[in-house]
């Protein structure tokens, strides 16, 4: 077996397991949602089918056991229960474990698999007369064929008049057809008599049904199997998806009526000659009844909708869909683009110096334009919607709240918001910490909530939204809010703040991010060990992001993370001190102002500057980095804004905006304070990237 196919299966299976988790949680929320049950069944079926195809027999037979139970659920023979969802989630974890074991070569714990399957068997046996899923049987049974492309059928069902009296119910058949796929049903009422001539037990109706299904014609015939002798049934394919582009693909009303034999071609030609609305004409002429026209129009609409859907999903073989590329390849691409951006900057510089070569300048400009497009595109490829991460948290909230005996709903918003893949990966742990904290400390127990007059179930709302070159992710709970006094007491106890410190609430809230800080009275398995929030702060700092906390007693807490879209290439401001050049992220820069010797003298060594009636502290970077030489008479202050605070960084010159390709510093230099990375400039020299939050922190400590 080709390894790349096996790898593709593994990748796909992981994705499917993610979807499965989401579908299961959705099913738990809405037990009556047959759509979610169907989705779970289909995912299980796909994993089983492709697992067997690629030689993962253990996965295939295990999944088969689960699928058998879901067949009962799908047929409404077994209800959706909490137990079923929990078992299915364990089954999902087992499949993932088997998949990972196949990769690492680890030995899988078969007893655990058996335990899950046994659970399903017990569940299935609760249903009277149901055969329990047999793992043995699974190995012997040939795997079902994967369904093909959806085909649209026109079904005319004309039951015998006596069909209702014989106990058959056509409505049940229609329900079964609806399960096969999107279905448009038109009942023809033209045969209905007036009351004095009507025998109420006879059937006067017949139906046109337009069905799009991938199950094949036999599956449709199976639906009618018990009434086949008591009806006239015709099934015709009207759209098999192969005529995508012909004439817009949509049949005219007249074509449909003629094709069905309701009108002859000659009659149709005659009608067309009259140039009125065809449907009206046909009815007026008494050739067809209004029901036939309605039915034909609905068929037209159904086929049109199915085709549009198919087109939008890009399911047709002609439409380019998507390809799977390993993340490493994308990382290499982004790195190469980064190099190219650097070289392009150099080319532009050279072209500027050799201005007399007009052609070189124009080529350099062209290269610059293309490089910018390439950079945007390459970065865009690595963008992923944050939704996948959000849906993982649904499981987290479900399991944790059950463990702690709380009822918590997780709602999400902005799942489609895109962020760089590497950023999303690094965001996972901090978000887990914050959500765990909300569940453990934030949301009260149902009893406490009811006593406070709040709804029994708590809510955690996750929201992602774009804001300039950043994404704001907020985690909002409707719990007890942060206990200001408890935090202050703990901070004093841990000597984080002096006992007499007068701090506004906002700064006290910020203390929860101090290392080793936890106000939880007892340590639970969830949180309270005092590691967590400082790790969150560290992780967000590493992402060049910031954290904002808002809290209101008994109303809840909102933690907002501001995260840059990408970690690879940023817009920045290039500055110079002596001969050294530095860059700082443009997103943090508010404005640049001049600093004269008089200004310095006026501040009497307090390093404060009056900017539009407000005092802003400044840090002379020349002193901080111990750069030799004298500062020029007029220096520049770059005012940066961070978490609502402002700070000025004093430099010799501001050179201008710069596209910075971020390179990490070598291991030797990673501990250097005030630097977060480096970049290569157009002339080949290295500029260090200033770590503004760290500089601000150092300045605050010095004060």
């Amino acid at each position, binding site marked *: 077996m080709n390894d790349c196919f096996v790898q593709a299966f593994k990748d796909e299976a992981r994705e499917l397991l993610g979807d499965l988790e989401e579908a299961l949680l959705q099913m738990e929320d809405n037990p009556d949602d047959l759509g979610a049950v169907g989705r779970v069944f289909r995912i299980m079926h796909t994993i089983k089918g492709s697992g067997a195809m690629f030689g993962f027999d253990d996965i295939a037979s295990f999944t088969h056991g689960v699928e058998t139970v879901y067949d009962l659920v799908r047929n409404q023979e077994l209800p959706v229960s909490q137990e079923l969802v929990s078992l299915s989630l364990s089954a999902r974890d087992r499949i993932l474990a088997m998949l990972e074991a196949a990769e690492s070569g680890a030995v899988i714990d078969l007893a655990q698999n058996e335990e899950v399957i046994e659970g399903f068997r017990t569940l299935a046996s609760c249903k009277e007369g149901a055969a329990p899923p047999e793992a043995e049987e699974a190995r012997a049974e040939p795997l079902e064929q994967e369904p093909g492309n959806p085909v649209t059928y026109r079904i005319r069902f004309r039951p015998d008049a006596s069909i209702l009296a014989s106990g058959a119910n056509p409505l049940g058949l229609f329900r079964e057809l609806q399960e096969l796929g999107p279905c448009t049903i038109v009942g023809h009422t033209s045969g209905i008599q007036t009351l004095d001539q009507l025998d109420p037990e006879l*059937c006067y109706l017949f*139906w046109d049904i337009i069905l799009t299904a991938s199950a094949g014609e036999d599956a449709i015939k199976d639906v009618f199997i018990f009434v086949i002798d008591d009806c006239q049934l015709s099934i015709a394919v009207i759209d098999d998806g192969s005529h995508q582009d012909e004439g817009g693909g949509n049949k005219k009303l007249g074509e449909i009526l003629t094709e069905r034999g309701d009108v002859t071609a000659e009659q149709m030609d005659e009608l067309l000659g009259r140039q009125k609305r065809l449907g009206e004409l046909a009815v007026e002429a008494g050739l067809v*009844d209004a029901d036939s026209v309605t039915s034909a129009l609905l068929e037209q609409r159904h086929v049109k909708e199915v085709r549009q859907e198919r087109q939008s999903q890009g399911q047709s073989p002609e439409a380019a869909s998507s390809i799977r590329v390993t993340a490493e390849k994308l990382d290499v691409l982004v790195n190469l683009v980064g190099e190219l951006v650097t070289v392009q900057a150099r080319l532009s510089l050279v072209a500027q110096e050799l201005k007399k070569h007009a052609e070189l300048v124009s080529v350099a400009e062209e290269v610059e334009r293309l490089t910018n497009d390439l950079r945007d595109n390459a970065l865009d490829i690595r963008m992923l919607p944050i939704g996948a991460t959000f849906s993982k948290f649904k499981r987290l909230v479900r399991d944790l709240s059950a463990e702690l005996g709380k009822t918590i709903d997780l709602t999400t918003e902005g799942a489609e918001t895109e962020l760089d893949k590497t950023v999303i990966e690094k965001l996972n742990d901090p978000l887990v910490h914050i959500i765990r904290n909300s569940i453990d400390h934030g949301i009260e127990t149902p009893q406490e909530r009811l006593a406070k007059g709040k709804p029994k179930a708590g809510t955690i709302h996750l929201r992602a939204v774009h804001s300039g070159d950043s994404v704001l992710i907020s985690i909002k709970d409707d719990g007890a809010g942060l206990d200001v006094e408890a935090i202050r007491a703990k901070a004093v106890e841990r000597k984080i703040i002096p006992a007499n410190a007068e701090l506004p609430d906002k700064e006290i809230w910020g203390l929860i991010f101090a290392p080793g800080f936890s106000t939880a009275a007892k340590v639970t398995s969830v949180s309270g060990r005092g590691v967590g929030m400082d790790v969150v702060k560290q992780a967000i700092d590493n992402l060049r992001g910031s954290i904002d906390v808002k809290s209101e007693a008994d109303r809840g807490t909102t933690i907002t993370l501001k995260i840059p879209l990408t970690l690879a290439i940023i817009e920045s401001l290039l500055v110079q001190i002596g001969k050294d050049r530095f860059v700082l992220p443009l997103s943090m820069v508010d404005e640049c102002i001049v600093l004269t010797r008089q200004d310095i003298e006026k501040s009497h060594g307090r390093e404060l500057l009056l900017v539009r009636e407000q005092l802003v502290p400044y840090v002379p970077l020349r002193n901080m980095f111990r750069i030799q030489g004298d500062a020029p008479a007029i220096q520049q202050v770059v005012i940066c804004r961070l978490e609502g605070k402002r700070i000025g960084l004093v430099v010799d010159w501001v050179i201008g905006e710069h596209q910075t390709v971020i390179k990490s510093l070598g291991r030797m230099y990673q501990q250097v304070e005030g630097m977060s990375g480096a970049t290569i400039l157009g002339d080949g020299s290295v500029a260090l990237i200033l770590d503004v939050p760290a500089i601000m922190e150092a300045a605050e400590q010095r004060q």
Partner: protein
Amino acid sequence: MVQPVKVSKKKDRTQVVVSGSLTIAQAAQLRDGLLQAFNSGKKVELSLAGVTAFDLTALQLICSAHRTSCQRGMEFTVVGDDLEQFTSVARLAGMLRHTGCVQDVNCSCIWKR
């Protein structure tokens, strides 16, 4: 036992009130009730508000009653047909329409939505 179909004469109309299941077992009774109401010569009102289940015979009968009203030039109204249950059965049976049939001369089709 409660009568599933009750016909009562009001000042300006004859009211046919159905309660409980309205399936093939009650179909003959409803037809007779409706005929009786139409024969009274006044406007006919069918109330479905108390119905708990519908099947195809019910849909056919209601359609037939409307046809009868068109043929006799009498007014016929259905109340309680906004019941979710009624609409969902009518939708499943493919009865709902944007326009009425040929008989629907005064545009009072009961399937129009």
